[in-house]
């Protein structure tokens, strides 16, 4: 199985008024196409920072990352953005829907940013798949939290231009009640399995982490424990 995501010896430091602060310390991991990884850890353990680096939102201070076969640490910001536009989808804790756009327009946005035709039809399809085919023209403020997160999931899956999709989810149930959270997670895993996409998710919930093929627990910027399940080929600390 070829690696969809690979990180080698990641270090990340930021400058603060009290001197440099290490956020990540020597992290390596590998994930094959279609597999899923849960990153857990206490607040401030560095899991969201790691997610951002793996998705190419920022560059690590040291180390290398490959995403869909490309070394993103060797790319500049524009090239990384282009890669994200092709094969990265995001689901955020606070949904991050654009309030001025309807549900359909929010889902159309990734296709439009790629300059694709048929964005509206594609958005309609994805919204139907998440059970919101009847709420295409509703604005985020007119939707419940669970519905907003379903729109965000539809948008994430609409982000993939081809088969090489990788979905990054940052505490996707963090803003939802237990019932809605379960529904959203079921949907996320269902679509992930249907589309054969790779999934990396940050969560506090043990229950959710257990549904992933691999599990990585972080503490103080380092990997505290790695579950070398089927998906995790290599975890080193």
């Amino acid at each position: 199985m070829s690696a969809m995501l690979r990180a080698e010896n990641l270090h990340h430091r930021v400058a603060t008024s009290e001197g440099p602060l290490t956020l990540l310390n020597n992290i390596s991991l590998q994930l094959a196409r279609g597999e899923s990884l849960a990153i857990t850890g206490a607040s401030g353990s560095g899991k969201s920072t790691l997610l951002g680096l793996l998705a190419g939102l920022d560059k690590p201070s040291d180390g290398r990352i490959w995403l869909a076969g490309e070394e993103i640490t060797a790319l500049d910001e524009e090239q990384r953005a282009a890669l994200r536009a092709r094969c990265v989808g995001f689901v955020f804790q606070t949904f991050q829907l654009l309030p001025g756009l309807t549900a359909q327009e929010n889902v159309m946005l990734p296709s439009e940013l790629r300059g694709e035709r048929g964005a509206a039809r594609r958005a309609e399809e994805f919204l139907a798949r998440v059970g919101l085919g009847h709420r295409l023209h509703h604005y985020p403020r007119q939707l419940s939290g669970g519905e907003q997160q379903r729109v965000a999931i539809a948008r994430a899956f609409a982000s993939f231009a081809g088969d090489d999709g990788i979905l990054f989810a940052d505490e996707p149930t963090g803003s939802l009640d237990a019932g809605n959270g379960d529904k959203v997670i079921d949907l996320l895993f269902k679509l992930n399995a249907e589309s054969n996409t790779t999934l990396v998710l940050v969560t506090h919930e043990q229950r959710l982490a257990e549904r992933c093929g691999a599990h990585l627990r972080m503490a103080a910027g380092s990997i505290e424990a790695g579950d070398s399940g089927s998906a995790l080929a290599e975890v080193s600390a």
Partner: protein
Amino acid sequence: MLPLKLLFRDWRGGELALIATALVLAVTCVTAIAHFTDRLARAMEQQSLTFLAAERVLRSSRPVDPAWLQEARDRGLLQAEAVQFASMVAAGDQFQFAAVKAVGAGYPLLGELEMRDTEEGPSHRVKQGPAPGETWVEPRLLPLLQLQLGESLQLGDTSLRISGLLEREPDRGTSFFDMGARVLVHLDDLPASGVIQPGSRVRYRYLFAGDDEALDRYFEWLKPQLTEHQRVIDLKEGQPRVARALERAESFLFLAGSLAVLLASVAVGLAARRYSLRHTAYVAVMKSLGAGRDKVLAIYLGQLAALTLIATAAGLLLGSLIQSQAVNLMADFFPAQPPPSHWSPLIVGLATGFDCALGFAVAPLFRLARTDPMQTLRRDWSNPDRREWLGLVLGPTSMLLLIWWLSGSLAITAALFAGMALLVGGAALVNRLLVRGRLASIGGAWRIALGSLQRRAAFNTLLIAAFGTGLLAMLALVFARTALIDEWRMQLPDKAPNHFLMNIAPHEVDGLDQMLFDKGVASTEIYPMVRGRLVAINGVPAKEYEKSAGGERVGALRRELNLSWTENLAPDNRILEGDWWDKTDEGVSVEVELAARLKLALGDVLRFSIGGLEVEAPVASFRSLDWNSMRPNFYMLFAPGTLEDFPATYITSFYLPPQQKLLVNDLVRNFPSVSVIELDKIIQRIRDTIDQVSLAIESVMALMLVAGVLVLVAGVRASIAERLQEAAIIRTLGGRRRLLLQSLLLEFGLLGIAAGLLAAAGAEATLAVLSQRVFELPFMFHPLLWLLGPIVGALLVGSAGTLACRSSVSQPPLKVLRELA
């Protein structure tokens, strides 16, 4: 297409409304003012040109070559002719000295004559003079000649029927040719009258009007051919006082336009900043979804361009509508039929729209494009990029360039820059002082208000500067307008002398003085006058002196001067250097500007030639005076006793109210040799023009005040969102609505006081530069400004802020928190 789609979607969401409103407001204000000032300036110019009855006048003491006039007609110019001279007119055995003016077809080219065709009826305006064989005379001539309207008077060998009473002519002047009652005749009657003989003192006025460029080209062609007896007169030369008033009015209107740009820019800047802050989350999400910086920039710049185009178009339309309504409403006050709108104000509006957008909205968008996509994960929407240098440089630079272009005046631009720099520097300083207040000992609303000010220290600097700019514009404008209009009114006070009496013989002085006293007319001092020529300075003949002193041509060396003496310094005269006659008893006091042109020093000896005799006198003092005071004034005032042996005539001036006008007839009858110069009609016309200009200035100022208030509203709106969340939290924790309203009032009130104080300082600096460099008025300190600034600031900003936030404070806190989440 994507930017347009997003613009459309965003618009629906209401996010772009504020920036669009600010742009529309900017363009509307500037377009309306530019249109209005353009039309008003052109109307006023037209009106002023009627003082000449033409756009240019060629004045000559002899008839000019008819080929010159033919050339003008060939070039498509309008041309008319007037011949002026003094002559006796008669009726039976009554004779009267009159100022005759013979006018041909087409006279007046600009302006109108005002006449009556019955003795009691209303006057009306006409665009041509009397027909051949007829004459129109000034009403006061009828009793002098014991004539009625419809009867005839004799001008030389010809008899002319009096068919009208002349109330006003546009180009009535104050020269020798205008002394005495006016008799207006047709040019065709002149040859038959035989009054013009070789050697007669006659003034020929050739009037021209037409396209500016054609006029310029014609006079370029004509000027080299003119002799020293011929002169071209345009508005500036014809009516320097009106020209100056117009120039100042124009400067003022441009200042108002510039301030509109300034205010609008601030409004756009505030709106754009808010827009950029609110879109940080958008951009972070878009970047996570794969939009690079260039793409984000392209999307937002595309949106801004489209928005600017739409808003500018709307502003141009609105501005044009507003000005046409304003012009219609003010039609009665316009000096003449307002000229149609020109296209140039549209360019000004267009440039303003794009300048405001580029200068003030582009920098926040560049910052927006640099948003870090990691913020989506950190859920932190503050904009960490503090590099605001682009905005700080681009905004003010583009604004100042636009103001420079609009006003065409470096002085106005510099004045505003000085005011603004003072304001922004002061805002930072005041803000530091404000946030250092100790909170521990105060409670309630004060604590919340000061706490809020401290937390938003950086933004408050911007807000104080913005509010301060609005207040600065309003204060500077109100005070500049007051100074300007007061100065005009002071120049021509209500009872300024409006008649001059010249050529009073020494034996007539007492009798004339008594007559004026008996009639209750207060005259200025009666001055003796001896005519003499300045022939040498320190023994050097005048012409050689002129060359050695730098070669500047000084008119005073080429003609006879009116020389006088007096013991009392007139109220409008002031000794600047040297001594007056209470400290020395010999010499001559010289008017300071002439002294400067002649490069004179105290003690220089001036030699005058008076009636073939020569007199020498050392320069005893330099003296300033006010030529506008309408009192007799002299370049040279001698020590009493120096000139008393020379034959002198006397001169004085006095104010005659309109109802006592016939006193002029009594004067002419009792003192036939005295020349009466009647300035009352000219003064009235100048006063009318100044009143119209003042009204225009006040109207423009009202528009500006509206713009200023709108900036305040934009500033308040820009800061509302940041306050709402806090208010909702305080309410959730049990804070009462009244407490919140009090704290808001205090917070905005304190900001208003700070802004008002700074605005007063900025306005004082601006006024100082403006009065000296633009309006050429003396510098004045304005204590009222310092009092009004903070009070108006606290009231306006305090009430605007509280009102804007009031409804939100009343909403259920949960709703506010949900909407802001």
